[in-house]
Structure formats: C-alpha cells, structure tokens
C-alpha cells in the first residue's frame, strides 16, 4: 500500500503543488507521507483535490480499498453508474466508523502522550537520581581513596614503628650484652684487684712482722679477772664439744619456744574452729528441720554431727596420735557447715531484699496518693488565689469608678462591705484549707519517717541477731588468758599490755621557760564492727582486735592528757585492762 500511496502521491504531486498554496517540496512529501493526508483533508473544503467529477468511481474504489484495508466491510457504492451521487447509508456508516476509529485513536494518542509525559518525568527523575547517585559514588570513591591513603600512611607508620621497635630491641639486646660483658669484665677485674690486694696485704703483714721497731704491745697495770669470775680453761676437744652442745642447746631452746608458741596458737585456732562449728550446727539445725524437703541434708548433717561429736570427744587423743585424721574430719565438717551457713545467709539476704521491696511498695502507694492530694490542693489554692485576684481587681475598678462620684461611692460602699465580708469568709475558708493541707502534709512526712525508722530497726535487729550468733560462737572469753600469758605468736605482734602514750604534752606544761607547741592526735572514733572485722576475728587475725584495743587506749590517753588527771587515767586504764580484748559487744557499747 505504501508503494501505492507513493505512486499515488507522485501521481498527484503536480496537482497538489499546483493547487495548494502551501509550498512543500515533493521530496518532503515522499519522506513524510503521513502528513500529506491531513493537509489534503484540510484543504479539501477549499478545493476538492481528491475527488473530482471525473474520478468518482476511482475514488470510490480507492476508498473501498482503503476501508477494506482498515478492516471495514462496508463499501461505498455509487447510486448511479456515473457515480455522481453516493448511497448515503453506507457512506454515513463508514463515516461514523471512521470517526469512531479516529476518536479512539485520538484517545489512545492522548493517553500515549500522557504516558509519555509520565515517562518523561520519571526519566527525568531517574536521571536526576542517577546523577545524584553518581555524585555520591564519586564522593564515596574519593572518600575511599582518602581512606586508602590514610591507611597506607598508617601502614607506613606501623612499618616504621615496627622497624623502630626492632632497632630498639636490637639496641636493648646489644646494651644487655654490653652490660653483661662489662659486668663479667668488671667482676673479673674486681677479682684480680682483690687478689692483688690480698697479696699486698699478705706482704704488708709480713713486712710489719719483720720490722720490729715498734711492736704491738699491751701494757696493763695488773691483769683483770674474768667478768664471770671463773678462770679461763685450756682449749681442749672437750671444750669445743661443750661449745657445740651449748650451741645446740640454745638452738633447741629457740625451737622449743617457737614450737610451744605454735602449739598454743594451733590449739587456740582449733578451739575456735570447734566452737565455730558447734555454733554453726546450732544455728543451722532448727532451720533445716523447719524447711521441708531437706531431710536428706538433715540426715547427712546428723551424721556429720555425730561424727563431730565423736571427733570432739576423742579430740584430745586424736590430736595426739591421729592428728591428720582429726584435722581432715574437722576441716571437712567445717567446710560443709560453712557452705550451709553461707547459703543460709544468702537466703536471708534474699528474704530481706524481698521484704525491703515490699516495704518500699507499701511506701510508694501512699506517696502517690500523697502527691495527688498535694496536686489537688495546690490547684485549689491557685483557684482561690485567682478568685481573690479577680475580686481585688473588681474592687479596684469599682473604687476607681466611684472615686469620681462620691454619692455613687457611698452607694457602693455597702456593696464593697458585702464584698469584703464575702472575701473574708472566703479567706477564712482558704486558711482552713491551707491548715488542713499542712496537717496532712505533716502526717505524711511523719508516716514516712516512721517507716524509715521501722526499716532501720528491722535492719539493726537482723544485724544484732547475726552478730549474736557469731559472738556466742567464738570462745573469745578464753582467748584473753592466752593473750595475757606469753602470747607471742607468729602472727601477733608482741605488745606491752598497756601501750603507754607520750607524756610530751603534759610535760610541756612543766617546762617553765620554753615555748613548745604540741598537736594532739585527733581521737579516732572506733567504728561499729563490720562484717569484715567479724571475719577477721573469725580467722583470728590479730590486727582488728588489737586495733580496737589500741584505739581505746589512745582515746583514753588523749582524753586524760587533755584533762590532766592522772588518777582518772589510771582508773580508766585499769578498766581497759580488765576488759577482754575481743569482746566486741562491750567494746561497742563503750565506744
């Protein structure tokens, strides 16, 4: 068809060019044949170029052909053979069809255009985003390269540092070797010099012996007796043997004393251990019975207990012959008991924590309501204030307005009086509310304080309970006897029973002419024994107890020095002496 149209165009070319005013080159027509049709159509109304009187059948046939191509079955038929007129119905139908087609096409075109616009916008968007991404890419690339650069630099640095380290290490090694070689050289030289010196000394002494101008001599008026009054004895083998035996005797004595001290200490420790164990069992037994489901443990414990009883009964002999066995038993049982005690204490802690939480919960609920109440009251107060303010303003206004007119003021007076009265009432009400509010607040604070106290007392009770158990457990009352006797053990410093303090200050006052300035030591308040201290005592570390003692001594000292009453001091000291070192309870109450 294209070909045909082309030929047709060629055929009609001169006609068109000749008729139409539009000057279009034929080549253009050739190239864009689509344009030729609407052009020709628009120009149709002016001059019929397509169909003339002469070529009606041709045009009809052509149109039919075209329609057939378009897929329309209708065909235009000439009403007469000459073809001057057409049958109207099929023409109209085709016309309608064509119009429909055209309309559809137009619609499609529009849609397409829209689509294209959309596409264009998306394209644009994509392009923009693309460019942006490109930018980003570039940026990141740049960043990357920068990072690469820094990394490279760091690598370089590391390398240099490593090399530095290496050289340093080498240096160190070198220096060490130098030091070693020098040390060996030095020691060698020192030895050589020493040998020479020894030789020289030898020679010197030889020479001095040979030279007899000034002999060493002793010139005594009359010889003295020995300091012990005995006569000196001849050096014999017997004498040397006696020296040996003497030496071993002293050594033995020393070992004996140290052994005794150790035995004493050991016995003490064992005693404490026993006591502790017993006490622990005492503490643990009722609890375990109360807790159901611990029967097995109970059994085992009972067994242990019976074992312990045995061990305790036979401890005296056990210490003597089967010390190892007894110790093993004792240690094992103690360990067991200790574990139990620890668990128990942990449990207690948990319980107390839960208790605390509950308490705190109890506390928080009233606190919240308290807050609410406070808020409400504040609001009320605010409202009242606002009222008052408004009323004051009103009053002011009235006063201002009535100031001009005295008669009106007189009239208004009663109103203001009334107002005042009301105001007063309201004020009273407000005051009352305020008072109530204050009272409530006080109540709340009191309740809070009370709660705090209760909590504290609970804590104290708990601590006291624990402490009591511990203190009852320890045999400290016995301890004092040992400490007052020899008591020099490996762990405790031998100290004088009474650490005497300086009299410097007291003395200073006696110095009649000279000014001295003394600074008394600040008395340290001895703290409440903490658990760590308890543990310390349980392990029998001496420092805690001794520190207690010394603290008290110091306190006494300073106080007496300041007061300058020696008698009181001696009394106090005597009392301090009486008090056993390890009684924590008393100590606590004293300090």
């Amino acid at each position, binding site marked *: 068809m294209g070909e045909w149209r082309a030929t047709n165009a060629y055929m009609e070319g001169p006609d068109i060019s000749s008729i139409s005013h539009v000057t279009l080159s034929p080549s253009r027509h050739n190239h864009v044949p689509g344009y030729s049709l609407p052009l020709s159509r628009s120009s149709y109304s002016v001059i019929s170029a397509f169909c003339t009187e002469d070529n009606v059948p041709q045009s009809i046939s052509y149109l039919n052909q075209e329609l057939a191509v378009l897929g329309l079955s209708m065909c235009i038929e000439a009403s007469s053979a000459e073809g001057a007129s057409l049958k109207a119905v099929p023409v109209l139908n085709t016309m309608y069809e064509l119009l429909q087609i055209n309309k559809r096409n137009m619609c499609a075109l529009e849609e397409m255009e829209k689509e294209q616009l959309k596409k264009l916008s998306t394209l644009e968007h994509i392009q923009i985003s693309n460019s942006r991404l490109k930018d980003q890419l570039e940026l990141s690339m740049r960043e990357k390269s920068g990072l690469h650069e820094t990394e490279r630099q760091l690598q370089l640095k590391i390398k240099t540092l490593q090399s530095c380290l290496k050289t340093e290490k080498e240096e160190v090694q070198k220096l060490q070797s130098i030091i070693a070689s020098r040390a060996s050289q030095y*020691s060698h030289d020192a*030895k050589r010099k020493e040998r020479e010196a020894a030789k020289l*000394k030898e020679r010197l*002494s030889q020479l001095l012996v040979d030279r007899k101008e000034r*002999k*060493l*001599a*002793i*010139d*005594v*008026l*009359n*010889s*003295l007796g*020995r*300091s*012990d009054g005995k006569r*000196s004895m001849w*050096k014999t083998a017997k*004498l*040397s043997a006696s*020296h040996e035996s003497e*030496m*071993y005797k*002293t*050594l033995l004595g020393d070992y004996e004393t*140290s052994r005794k001290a*150790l035995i004493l200490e050991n016995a003490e420790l064992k005693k404490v251990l026993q006591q502790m164990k017993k006490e622990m069992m005492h503490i643990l037994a009722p609890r375990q019975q109360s807790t159901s489901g611990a029967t097995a443990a109970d059994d085992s414990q009972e067994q242990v207990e019976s074992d312990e009883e045995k061990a305790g009964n036979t401890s005296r002999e056990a210490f003597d012959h089967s010390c190892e066995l007894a110790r093993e038993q004792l240690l094992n049982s103690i360990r067991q008991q200790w574990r139990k005690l620890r668990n128990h204490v942990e449990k207690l802690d948990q319980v107390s924590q839960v208790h605390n939480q509950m308490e705190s919960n109890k506390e928080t609920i009233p606190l919240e309501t308290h807050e609410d109440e406070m808020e409400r009251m504040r609001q009320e107060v605010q409202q009242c204030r606002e009222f008052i303010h408004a009323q004051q303003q009103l009053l002011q206004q009235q006063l201002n307005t009535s100031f001009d007119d005295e008669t009106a003021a007189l009239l208004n007076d009663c109103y203001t009086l009334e107002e005042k009265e009301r105001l007063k009432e309201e004020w009273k009400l407000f005051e009352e509310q305020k008072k109530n509010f204050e009272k409530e607040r006080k109540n709340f604070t009191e309740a809070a304080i009370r709660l705090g106290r209760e909590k504290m007392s609970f804590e104290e009770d708990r601590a006291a309970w624990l402490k009591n158990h511990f203190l009852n457990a320890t045999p400290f009352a016995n301890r004092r006897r040992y400490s007052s006797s020899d008591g*020099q053990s*490996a762990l405790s*410093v031998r*100290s004088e029973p009474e*650490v*005497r*303090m*300086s*009299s*410097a*200050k*007291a*003395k*200073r006052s006696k*110095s009649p002419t*000279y*000014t*001295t*300035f*003394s*600074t008394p*030591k*600040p008395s340290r308040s001895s703290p409440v024994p903490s658990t760590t201290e308890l543990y310390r005592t349980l392990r029998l570390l*001496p*420092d805690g107890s*001794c*520190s207690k003692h*010394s603290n008290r001594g*110091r306190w006494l000292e300073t106080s007496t*020095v300041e007061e300058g009453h*020696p008698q009181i001091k*001696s009394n106090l000291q005597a009392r301090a002496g009486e008090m056993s070192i390890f009684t924590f309870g008393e100590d606590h109450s004293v300090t």
Partner: protein
Amino acid sequence: MNFSEVFKQSNHLCKVSPDGKYLATCVQYRLVVRDLSTLQILQLYTCLDQVSHMEWSSDSLFILCAMYKRGLVQVWSLEQPDWHCKIDEGSIGLVSSRWSPDGRHILNTTEFHLRITVWSLCTKAVSYIKYPKACQKGIDFSRDGCYMALAERRDCKDYVSIFVCDDWHLLRHFETETQDLAGLEWSPNGCVLAVWDSCLEYKVLLYSLDGRLLSTYCAYEWSLGVKSVSWSPSSQFLAIGSYDEKVRILNNITWKKIVQFEHPATIDNTKAIVYKEVDRRPAVVSDELSLHNITMGSTLFSTQSKYEICPLPVQIPVVKPEPDRANPKIGVSVLAFSSDSRYLATKNDNMATAVWVWDMQKMSLDTVLEHTSAVRCVMWDPRRPRLALCTGNSKLYLWSPGGCVSVQVPAEGSFQVQSLKWHCSGDSVILLGKDQLCLCYMDTDYEEK
C-alpha cells in the same frame, strides 16, 4: 620537760654507761665521767691524743678510748682511777676498736682490714683473726654476748665465721651465697643470722646458728638492692629497706614477705595522719624586742615551729637523685623498730624531711612527720613507743601514738641538735650539737603516781 646546762664534747663522743648511772664524754684528749643524776664530774682521765672512739664496757666498769691516728687504745677503770691499760697496735695502724661483750677483751681492726687483733685484759694474750671483710657491718655480737659473727673474704669468696666469745673458739665457718657481702646481723634471740649482699644485688640470706641456710630472699633483680636491714626486738620481723623506696617485712616462720611498705610522694591513705612542721615566726614588735632581748636571747633569732595536722592528700617534697652519681640519695636508709615491736620508723632518702611511722599490728601507715629540713637522727625510746628525732636545728621533735611535739632547746648561743641518744631508762635524751651536749629530761612524775 627540763634541760640541763650545756657541756662541751668533741667528735660526738658522749655515752651513757650501760647501767645508766654515768655519762662519759670526750673533750679533745680528755675523758670526763659524770654522775648522771647530779652531773657532777666523778673522774677525769687524760689520754695521749685526741680520742676518736670511746666505748663503755658491758659491766660499766671500764672505758675504752681509741686514738686511731696513733694506733693506740687506752682503757680506764672507773673503780680504780690509777689503773691503766694501753694497747699499741704498732705501725700496722688501727681503724676500729671495740669491746667484746664480756668487757674483758678488746677487738682492734687494723688498717686495710688486714686482721682483727683480740687483746685479753685478763691474760694479756693476743690472738688474730685473719681476713676480715671491710664492709658496712662485718661484725656483730649476739644480744646475749655468746657469739660473734664475722664476715670474711678469702679467694674472692664470702665466708662467715661464728666465734664463741667466751674463749674465741671458732664454732662455725661457712661460705655464703653472696656476690659481695655487705653486712650481717643477729636476730635479737641470737638464733638466726641475717646476711645481705651489697647494693648491686638484692639478696638477703638467713642462716641458723649452726650455719644452715634457712632461707634466701630476693625481691627483684637488676636494680640497686638492699640499703638497710633491721630486726624487730621480738625477732618476729625482719625489715629490709631497699633502693626502690620500699620496706619489705619478712616473718620468722616461713621467711616470706608479709607486707610491703611503700613511700609514695602523695599520701592519700585516710588511715594515716600527716603532721607537718610549720614555721611560726615570732611576731615581736621592735620595742618589745628591746624589752625581751635579754631574757629571750637565743630563741629570738631562731624560728619557732609547731606540728600541724595536714588534710589529705599530702604531697611530700621529693628530691630527685642524680642518676650518674654513686650511692644515690634514694631508698630507705633508716629502719627502727620501737622497743615493743609495735611501730616501725623509716626514712626514705629522697624524702629526707619526712619520717614514716608504721603500725606493725595493723601493718599499715600510721603517721608521717614532715619537717622543714632534712631529718638527721631518729631514735626510739628504749622503754616506750616514743620517737625522738632531730633535723640539725635547735629543736627536738618527739612523737608518740598520742601526738607529737616540737621543743625548742633553750641553750645559749646556737645549739644545733645533730644527733641524739636516749638514756636506757627512757627518762632523758642526750642531745648532741657540733661540740656541745645537753640533757633533756622527760617528765616521769606522772608515771610514778
């Protein structure tokens, strides 16, 4: 507190007899013996030359005066003033002279440590001990006077000889595992001998009386080691002060370290108390000065001072030692246990103004005393836990657990306390100046009551 008048002395030669009754002082070539209670001169002896060393015998009957330059030793008797004894060491020279514990023998060390000559005053006999080592403390007598330990050096090796002082019988002779032995010291109970190496190597060895090696202790290697060693009077602890500014305490059962006391420049231990000496210039107006200058005299120009409790943390002034000098001024050089072994006083050489007192029961720092000048001498009262110290000025400083005090010595002229010594009863202190001495009496009446 009272002070006696000032007496002359020379070379700090001033000693109280062991029984505490007499005071012997040397003034040039004269030996003066006074009664301590009255300070009256009892005896006056004239020596052949200026005395360089003076010592009482253990029974307080004899006094030894050594004149090292002349190689002479003279012995005087307190009971028989006309009795005399002169020992001439001859041309071999003399560097040290001392009594043996029995007070009947004199041990003279000759020049170059060639030998030790033992002279008997009973039999006039003389015996030699060869190869004594020249070191910090090469000879030590046990506290009971039975044994003498002597460091020896033969064939470039260290040996220790233990002699029975009674008849100078050689009881034991053994080689020690030291590079260069620097000192030895008996434990107060006389059963353990502590031996330490020179400062080039940190090494402390403990030998039993019969020569068995009980233990070796080495805290670190390569840097300068032990500087001072001290036994506690109870023989329980051995304190070792070293160049790393620390004191290590060994126990007497395992000979292991119990605790380590450090001397930090900043004290922030809240359990310790820091007393700082503060100068207090007397604010005297000029006309008052003219009024008082007769009475105040000497004290006018010296500043008064007092101790103040410093709030923690405290910075102690530190002097950095020169690294290229030998015997650097760093490390713990003074270690002194109180008589009851309860306290330990230390001094770190690069913090020379401070004295540290450690509580041996709590094993912690108890007190630091910081002064305006370097501490010269630190001594414990032989009876009580009371510490006396001096810093080379005209003040005496005392510390006790109850507090501390600084006392101006009221002597005429300038009396700079350079050293001090306690009387064995702890009732008085002898203060030694450059060429003077003065007694300071502590009040004892409150104890008598």
